[in-house]
């Protein structure tokens, strides 16, 4: 058997659930539907994790809540000989533009504003699309889910920037940079939205598509 049989997209896809089986999402082996735990890798098995949607919404909600103070409070507190200034996430990016570092300002805006907000919207959209009719195909939504999973971690950039600056720029009274309270709420927001995306069971996207065909 060489396995090169051309199985075109015209053929109906058979899922593990259709066949009375349950698949391990960690190591991809399948088991009889009533099995509780994968005997190969030990992961808990569940054909469709229905409780996952409650977890998705819960993590997403705290993620959004943490994101609000993250934008209102200062991220960095800079003190030099003559002045002391505070900057928020967006304020810091605007400062960078004033200094001519437009490229870096764009990185910060993308990583700290566009990605987190895009992620909130995308996860909520994916969750709602399971029960409501949406225009985007299952393929499109699956791609969206992959992007969310891949890109969400990169929001941590600004937290690391604050960490580096705070440890590096400690020159007694001449110049010192310290972290502001937004650093912690922003980091929490990123972590919670990562957990929201990880809780989502992408198999549910495809189930909804199948149901609408039959």
């Amino acid at each position, binding site marked *: *058997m*060489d*396995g*090169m*049989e*051309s*199985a075109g*997209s015209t*053929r109906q*896809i*058979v*899922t*593990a659930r*259709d*066949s009375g*089986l349950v*698949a*391990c*999402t960690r*190591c*991809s*082996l*399948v088991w*009889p539907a009533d099995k509780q735990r994968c005997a*190969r*890798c*030990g*992961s808990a098995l569940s054909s469709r994790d229905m409780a996952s949607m409650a977890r998705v919404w819960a993590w997403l909600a705290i993620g959004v809540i943490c994101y609000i103070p993250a934008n209102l409070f200062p991220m960095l507190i800079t003190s030099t000989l003559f002045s002391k200034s505070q900057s928020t996430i967006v304020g*810091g990016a605007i400062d*960078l533009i004033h200094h001519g*570092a437009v490229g*870096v300002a764009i990185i*910060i805006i993308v990583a700290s504003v566009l990605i987190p907000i895009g992620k909130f919207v995308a996860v909520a959209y994916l969750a709602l699309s399971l029960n409501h009719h949406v225009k985007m195909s299952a393929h499109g939504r*699956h791609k969206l889910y992959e992007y969310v999973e891949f890109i969400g*971690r*990169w929001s*941590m*950039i*600004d*937290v*690391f*920037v*604050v*960490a*580096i*600056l*705070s*440890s*590096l720029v400690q*020159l007694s009274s*001449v*110049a010192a940079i310290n*972290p502001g309270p937004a*650093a*912690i709420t922003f*980091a929490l927001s990123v*972590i919670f939205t990562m957990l929201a995306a*990880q809780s989502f069971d*992408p198999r549910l996207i*495809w189930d909804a598509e199948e149901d609408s065909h039959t």
Partner: protein
Amino acid sequence: MEKRGTCGVQDADASEVYREGELIACPQCDALYRVVPLAHGERAQCVRCGTVLISTRNRAFVRVIALAITVVILMIAATIFPFLSVSVAGLTNSSSVLDAALAFAGGPMFGLSLAVAALIVAIPILRAALVIYVLTPMAFGRAPWPGAIPAFRFSEALRPWSMAEIFVIGVAVALVKVADLARIGFGPAFWFFAALVVVIVLKDGYMNRWTVWKALDQQDRS
């Protein structure tokens, strides 16, 4: 790319008799497949959603182990040596990777310090150590060491939380921010860390998860 997704796995019929170890399902969309032998260099993708199910690009555990050992060594070196330094008006301060991780250590931000230290130092090094532990006996044809299965599962679960590569971009942004405030010097750890990111990416790229699970499975049963 006509054959995309069709090599290595075949669509399984619903009537297929269930045989342990022969059927796998796509973790992303639950499409069911039967595993068939793959030639070296082939990979099997899910026909429906495109997720890579099996990749045989490299079966050599030895290469992954070598890269994982490199990760451990580089990470230790990167935390010991000075990372960056700044100087303003005759005053100089240098900071290591650990200093950066522990920048929040004072007061209410202590938890954030621990989290940053975990994301950029502890989790990457732990993942490398787990991989060495899981693969080393199998590379020499021995039975896996006790706990290899939960160790590999844990290493896989930690994958999204290993953020060394994101830290490097953070460093680049930070350097631009201080560029007109102070003079910056690069310590050896800066270059170790840059190399580290490349090695981590290679290690994860060469790691064939399905092969590892299969090897753990077989060793366990025999």
